């Protein structure tokens, strides 16, 4: 295939997945919110409100602050979305059905999610406003605490695959999914995903106690872009969780990509439910928890995976 055509198709595919996925996140969020708040789920509103809200946000003018870092502020949502897209390219939707079957796919995924730190920090820093600034520095503390266990459990899934390619990781789960073989893996991965995507209980950077933190000074299109970037990131994280722990496209009867979509949807629902069912953690306590509980547990996960392969 002509490399340009390949690039164009890749781009279209990733854009499609992220747009649909981001919409699904918004719909699920409203449905879960209704269920938790004790009313019957208003599905019509759940499907319609994300579009209405986006339209209203677009109608609103963007704001700026006194002497912001305009370039950094513009770059932050673009970088967030681009990193989510890059994280997604290495994940196959079916056998051979991926954008970039890179031999070191897990490394690229890790690099993309690690750089989210830069995007969030930039978003908070650029406003030159106190509460976004505090949110920016908070995110770094969260990210540094979750990233090591997050990547460790992913490395654990590479052990039986003898490869860092995500396709090989999926294939290695033919007999048994990693969620059963490495039971500590998926829970730790999900905690890490909440942290990386500044979502739910680990949303300390855009939190209510900071008047929405890095989002406090943002309105109009930039706000929409930031929120859609976050949703894209959740999609990428859920897709990787499905591939690395739930056997990706593996499954009977149905075509592989349906299995992959379904499993990603399940993990997205879990992440969204986490936001409505778990209270925000305290930053300092969480940092200690990350270093003294999550990292040792993640190491146990890796070594248990190793011992079982001897």
């Amino acid at each position, binding site marked *: 295939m002509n490399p340009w055509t390949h690039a164009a198709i890749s781009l279209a595919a990733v854009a499609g997945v992220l747009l649909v996925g981001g919409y699904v996140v918004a719909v699920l969020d409203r449905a*879960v*919110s*209704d*269920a*938790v*708040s*004790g009313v019957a789920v208003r599905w019509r*509103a759940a499907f*319609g*409100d994300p*579009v*209405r*809200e986006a*339209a*209203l*946000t*677009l*109608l*609103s*003018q*963007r*704001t700026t602050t*006194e*002497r912001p870092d305009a370039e950094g502020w513009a770059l932050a949502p673009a970088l967030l979305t681009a990193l989510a897209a890059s994280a997604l390219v290495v994940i196959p939707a079916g056998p051979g059905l991926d954008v970039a079957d890179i031999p070191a796919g897990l490394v690229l995924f890790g690099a993309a999610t690690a750089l989210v730190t830069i995007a969030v920090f930039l978003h908070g820093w650029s406003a030159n406003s*106190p509460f976004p600034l*505090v949110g920016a*520095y*908070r995110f770094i503390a969260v990210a540094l605490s979750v990233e090591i266990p997050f990547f460790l459990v992913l490395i654990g899934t590479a052990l039986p695959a003898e490869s860092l390619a995500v396709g090989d990781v999926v294939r290695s789960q033919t007999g048994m999914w990693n969620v059963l073989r490495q039971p500590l893996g998926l829970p730790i991965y999900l905690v890490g995903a909440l942290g990386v995507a500044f979502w*739910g*209980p680990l*949303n*300390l950077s855009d*939190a*209510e*106690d*900071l*008047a*929405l933190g890095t*989002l*406090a*000074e*943002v*309105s*109009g299109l930039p*706000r929409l872009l930031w929120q859609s970037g976050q949703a894209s990131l959740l999609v990428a994280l859920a897709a990787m969780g499905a591939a690395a722990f739930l056997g990706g496209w593996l499954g009977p009867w149905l075509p592989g990509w349906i299995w992959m979509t379904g499993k990603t949807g399940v993990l997205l629902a879990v992440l969204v439910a986490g*936001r*409505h*069912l*778990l*209270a*925000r*953690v*305290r*930053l*300092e*306590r969480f940092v200690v928890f990350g270093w003294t509980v999550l990292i040792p547990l993640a190491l146990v996960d890796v070594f248990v995976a190793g011992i079982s392969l001897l």
Partner: protein
Amino acid sequence: MGLRETLARLALDGPVPVFVVAGGGLDHELVRLKLDPRIRLVSTPRSANVMLAMGAPTSRLLRPAARVHDQMSHPRATVWAPGSASIDRITRLFPEIGIVRAPDDPVDHVLATHERLIHGERPSEPDVLPNEEPNPWRGVGPYGQGGKGMTGGVPYGRPLPQRSGDRDGLELDVLDLRVGPFFPHLPAGFEMTVKLQGDIVQEVRIHRPPRAGIRSDLHDPVLQRVAAESVCIAELELARARHHVLGFAGALHFHGLQALGRRVARMATTLSPDSAPTILRLRRLVPTTGVLSWSTKGVGVVSRALAEELRGPNARASGVLRDLRAHDPTYQALGFEPIGREEGDAAARWKQRIDEAIQSVELARRAEGARTTPGLGVEGPRGPIGSPTLTSRDDLSIVTGLIEGMEWGDALTTIVSLDLGPMVQL
């Protein structure tokens, strides 16, 4: 049809983002507004199109309200529900404002205003404050800061923060912020000046209301009457339970559980003498969210000695079992005994208030026709009613002492858990 009209048509049916500016004592009104599915209360004016102001306009609140108004992005509009107060001072500042008087529902008014705003039938409101730079352009240095380098002069508008020492021996900058009176989740009208170094509150000064002598800081009509006349104990106890459950609903939102907060707030509006099992179920379910453990446990511990200076549930959560009801023969006949806890942290205060809500509902069920005896003094949801209900000066120094040295999030958790009541009466 242009893009703008398409967007406007799409945008109309969704929930309207509203930033609420509320005067002291209106916190529970805020929680009620959160229940309304037609609007969406947002935590920053940047993401709102309509500002809903509630309460009488005092000079202490008009200017901050104008500041917040100007921070909203266009298109924007304001709706003010001044209660029974005169509106002259409002209309002088906000000439195009919509005024809501009881019994009209402010939310209806917000929706109508929003619709006309989005359709372009109503112009977006201009700034209220004058368009003046905080520091004028001086024409020297790359940003006109009037000096060379990052620290010379005043960089475009404002000075740079000053350095200050810290216990770890580092000398780094301090952000001196005046937070409030409309900061989300702080009590309505609450204002404080905070010195933030990193994310630690180094110093805090809570601004007192200019006038002492506030008639009543409790919104519930029963609680407003109870000091002067005899009321039904069942009604009084239900009002107390409502106060605590609504307060907890607000706390859930603060801790990131907006949907659960809505459920709890709805529970508060439908309380009856038979609601004890419902609240009890809540009491059992809520701990699974972590809001009573990892979010609040060990935060803002009030020692027993300090609690002697406090009143109501705040004191009882630290083991000081003072309660006027314990000396009231009517309550004694109902089998009332004060309940308390020992830990004294934010988690304990919330558990205490939910437990007291359950106790109150039980009392309401047993009370039948019993009435309060005027002259004995009444224990309100925040402590004795009738005697000064405003949080006393001592309480404020306790709050200040508690939150100094805390991480910002913990400091807010502490303030939210203390149920301080209005610092400023509108």
